[in-house]
């Protein structure tokens, strides 16, 4: 067996893991690794302009596919810049491996140049992390990193490698599979519990299915769709779970939560049996947990992570297991028992839901001379025929994209739900574009968010990524402005975006196409121009939108789900 340097081992491990793209930024502590990277062409490196974007792009690649995203950063500032990306991936349980350089072993603790305690800094926002102090442990540690990142409830793993380890040599051995005595994620759900759940579902008179990002991450959309259609129950997908069930299907009630639909929120609130799958009863989804718990309903909760169960809401039937396996088992039991839910009760329940739906809570007032942001998303949906991968940043535009773009398939909607990180949209789109060169990739953003990672326009140029940036430019930090209008007496403290760049010129300066759209009738032609005439270019469309548009419906923070503010209430 030949001897390899630590740096060569790192690259070899990435090859073994079939990693196609690594997003990174070189620096002193990773120079050996970059040299090893240079000497091969299997693993391609994408040079970002800021390490935060490296992790976001790796994260975006992972979300848009079923692969582990990989980022490579140097020690010190390289690692600290990556922290926001790592925390973002952690909050949404995204499998990412971040390799960071570290100062040489015998410099650690000496306040060396570009030294920081990467393992210490990232510990609270990773699934696990490692400091590899010996080259002999390197290959096994990387194997563990990939295994941990992508099994059980996925999450980011950081592997911190001192520079001397990347220079040291040893034999390369890469295990096929791995066993860890301290880590054995449960896969199969408890059959007795699943049986009880199915029994309860069949007894329900006002059933509701509520699913989250866990269904997408576990690739359970197909099973979920079959189960939901088999039962004929209403279903809602959270912000993280959109696309797990086709949004155009009549059984779909829209998104729940703070900006959810009336029908989804009221059905969540008033159901008698709630089947929660891969969702975690987040504060943005159920509002005030005491209010939610004040109405009696039985809850079945399927999740791979036991700590998600009965964390915020007490659950009656917990099922720990891999989502598609558990759903398959439910379908099998339903088929075997040849049982069906009470058709009469279900019809009455659907009638109740139809009345809530009739409120048409997503209707908004069109304006003749001003572009409504919702309208841009509706047109985007039409022009892309609902077939694009849509990433977003964080704020009002994120909610409008989630509300008005109908996702019929999983892994088409990519956003930061848990951490709510502004600036993710463009790097997410870069990761998705590399992974899916055949698909239209859209980044829905605002003039606030886009400026948080605007430097990546340069990366997108270098790698010829034909992303379409939909900038909903209302000259305000819109969501902040909305809260200030509603809860702070319209005192718009620091939420106005002054001295904005000319985004068209900015896009052109980076070598892209820029279009400004100021009138409603120009929205669709501009989109067509971008997606058809400039199919292979990055196009930045700056939509000058209504400054006062708010996201509705809205459940104010700390309120109950039924306590919704609708457009007409104002």
């Amino acid at each position: 067996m030949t001897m390899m340097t630590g740096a060569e081992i790192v690259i070899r491990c990435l090859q073994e893991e079939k990693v196609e793209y690594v997003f990174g930024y070189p620096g002193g502590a990773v120079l050996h690794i970059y040299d090893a990277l240079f000497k091969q062409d299997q693993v391609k490196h994408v040079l970002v302009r800021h390490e935060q974007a490296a992790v976001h792009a790796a994260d975006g690649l992972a979300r848009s596919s079923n692969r582990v995203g990989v980022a490579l950063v140097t020690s010190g500032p390289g690692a600290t810049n990556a922290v926001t990306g790592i925390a973002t991936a952690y909050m949404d349980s995204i499998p990412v491996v971040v390799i960071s350089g570290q100062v040489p072993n015998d410099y650690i603790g000496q306040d060396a140049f570009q030294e920081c305690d990467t393992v210490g800094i990232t510990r609270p926002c990773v699934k696990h992390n490692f400091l590899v102090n010996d080259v002999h442990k390197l290959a096994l540690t990387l194997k563990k990193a990939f295994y941990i990142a992508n099994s059980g409830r996925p999450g980011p793993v950081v592997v911190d490698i001192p520079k001397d380890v990347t220079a040291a040599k040893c034999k390369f051995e890469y295990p096929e599979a791995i066993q860890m005595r301290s880590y054995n994620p449960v896969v199969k759900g408890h059959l007795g519990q699943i049986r009880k759940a199915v029994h309860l579902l069949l007894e329900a008179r006002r059933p509701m299915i509520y699913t989250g990002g866990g269904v997408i991450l576990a690739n359970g959309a197909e099973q979920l769709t079959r189960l939901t259609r088999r039962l004929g129950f209403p279903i809602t997908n959270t912000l993280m779970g959109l696309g797990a069930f086709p949004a155009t299907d009549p059984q779909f009630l829209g998104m729940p939560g703070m900006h959810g639909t009336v029908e989804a929120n009221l059905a969540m609130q008033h159901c008698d049996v709630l089947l929660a799958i891969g969702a975690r009863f987040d504060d943005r989804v159920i509002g005030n947990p005491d209010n939610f718990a004040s109405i009696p309903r039985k809850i079945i909760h399927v999740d791979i992570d036991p700590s998600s169960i009965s964390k915020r809401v007490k659950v009656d039937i917990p099922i720990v297991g891999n989502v598609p396996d558990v759903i398959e088992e439910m379908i099998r039991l339903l088929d075997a028992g040849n049982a069906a839910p009470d058709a009469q009760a279900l019809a009455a329940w659907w009638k109740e839901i139809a009345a809530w739906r009739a409120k048409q809570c997503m209707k908004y007032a069109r304006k003749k001379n001003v572009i409504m942001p919702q309208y841009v998303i509706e047109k985007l949906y039409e022009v892309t025929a609902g077939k694009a991968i849509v990433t977003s940043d964080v704020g009002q535009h994120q909610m409008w994209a989630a509300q008005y773009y109908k996702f019929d398939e999983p892994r088409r909607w990519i956003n930061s739900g848990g951490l709510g990180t502004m600036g993710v949209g463009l790097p997410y789109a870069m990761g998705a574009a590399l992974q899916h060169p055949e698909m239209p990739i859209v980044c829905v953003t605002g003039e606030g968010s886009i400026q948080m990672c605007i430097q990546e326009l340069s990366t997108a140029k270098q790698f010829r990524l034909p992303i379409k940036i939909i900038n909903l430019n209302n000259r305000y930090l819109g969501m902040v402005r909305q809260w200030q209008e509603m809860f702070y007496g319209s005192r718009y403290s620091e939420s106005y975006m002054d001295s904005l760049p000319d985004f068209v010129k900015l896009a052109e300066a980076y070598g892209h196409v820029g279009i400004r759209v100021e009138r409603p009738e120009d929205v669709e032609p501009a989109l067509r121009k971008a997606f058809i005439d400039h199919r292979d270019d990055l196009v930045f469309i700056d939509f000058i939108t209504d400054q006062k548009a708010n996201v509705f419906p809205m459940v104010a923070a700390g309120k109950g789900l039924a306590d919704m503010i609708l457009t007409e209430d104002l």
Partner: protein
Amino acid sequence: MRHIISILLENEAGALSRVAGLFSARAYNIETLTVAPTEDVSLSRLTIVTTGTDAVIEQITKQLNKLIDVIKVVDLSEAAHIERELMLIKVRATGKDREELKRLADIFRGHIIDVTESTYVIELTASGSKLDSFIQAIDAGLILETVRTGVCGIGRGERILKV
């Protein structure tokens, strides 16, 4: 409610800070924490005394189990168990106090393990509450220094925490 949570974890660098960090990050309470390697040096045994409602304790157990370095978690206080804590207490021992302190140490089955003209160091092993009682039994003005290890505990009989 007070709970004694016992954890078997990989004896790896940083494993302790993962446990301690979890408690501070999720605003759980730590009264005492002790840790040392076991007969198998690849394993550490960690004991935490904490308080919380049943729901909080359930979350603590689940969150601990989620840590990659944690192999097993048990709530010792759920069933029959023994708990002990070691205290070293240095007291001012002069005049008639010398006799009185010796007597108190005997009553609590402690040992005087260091003697000078003016001080004693008393070693006492007992449950945490017994140590508290001892401290209360002594004139507070005489206490120069106390060091406590924190609680460690073990299940009774066949109740065994092992890999």
